């Protein structure tokens, strides 16, 4: 079960699906690109995370229409999008707080 705060790989997977629906390999490449090559997921790790997100109803799987052999793709559910927004809010708060504290220490 996924809980907030999210781990970095899960956050990047959700961000990858926030813009558009993607299939497995596209998610792998997108996560790698978003993190500038810092987070490189293996297929086993990616599908473990996708399975958990599917079970928690954060994402859903569907068959891509214009794809060979009925390839499966993933997209965010309304609940997944809500949770992603909550996580972004939390991170914004932390970033703001950190900036304030660090600035106060430096001045």
């Amino acid at each position, binding site marked *: 079960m996924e809980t907030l705060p999210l781990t970095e790989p899960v956050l990047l997977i959700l961000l990858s699906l926030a813009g558009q629906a993607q299939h*497995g*390999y596209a998610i*792998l490449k997108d996560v790698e690109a978003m993190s500038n090559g810092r987070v*490189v*997921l*293996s*297929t*086993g*790790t*990616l*599908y*473990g995370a*996708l*399975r958990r997100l599917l079970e928690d109803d954060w994402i859903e799987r569907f068959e891509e229409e214009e794809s060979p052999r009925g*390839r*499966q793709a993933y997209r965010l559910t309304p609940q997944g999008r809500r949770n992603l927004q909550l996580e972004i809010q939390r991170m914004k708060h932390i970033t703001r707080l950190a900036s304030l504290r660090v600035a106060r220490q430096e001045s």
Partner: protein
Amino acid sequence: MIAWYRKLLCLYPAEYRKRFSEEMLAVLFQEREENAKRRLKNRARVVVRETAGLLRGALNEHFRMITEIHEQLSFVTGRFAMRNGFRFPKSTIVFMALILGGVLTAIKMGEDIATSVPHDIGPIAPIHIQPVHSILLGGMPLFFAFFYAAGLIGWAILFALRRSGVHRLDSMSVEQK
């Protein structure tokens, strides 16, 4: 390489394989195609990463499956309606400690009586008294640790031989009443 990955995917639980294995193989196939142009060192790195990921994933899925089944079993009524808490309540630990204390006290009292009896009475007097309780207290943790380790090794062997019964949990379903 795909044959290797296919073998590794066999380590996943049946339900998971049915749902994701084709898709995972398609991803691995795409990755192999892309890596074919790279250097041998990079290709080897990808293979190691994917192998480790699949092994870890299979282990996680089996662990999840076992823990989920245990959770389900604890809530159904009837034959499997036993929770861990009922099988070994915390009060048992208190009672066991009391019994151990009683046994040690009895040994100590026996020792005191034996040493208070004069040695020259003959066959009634003990020849040599060992401080039994100290040996018992020192030896018991070792004794339990030894049998616990032996049990773990035995279970690991049964698991490797697929005789532990865990593998049969794949096809097991529990209906809640």
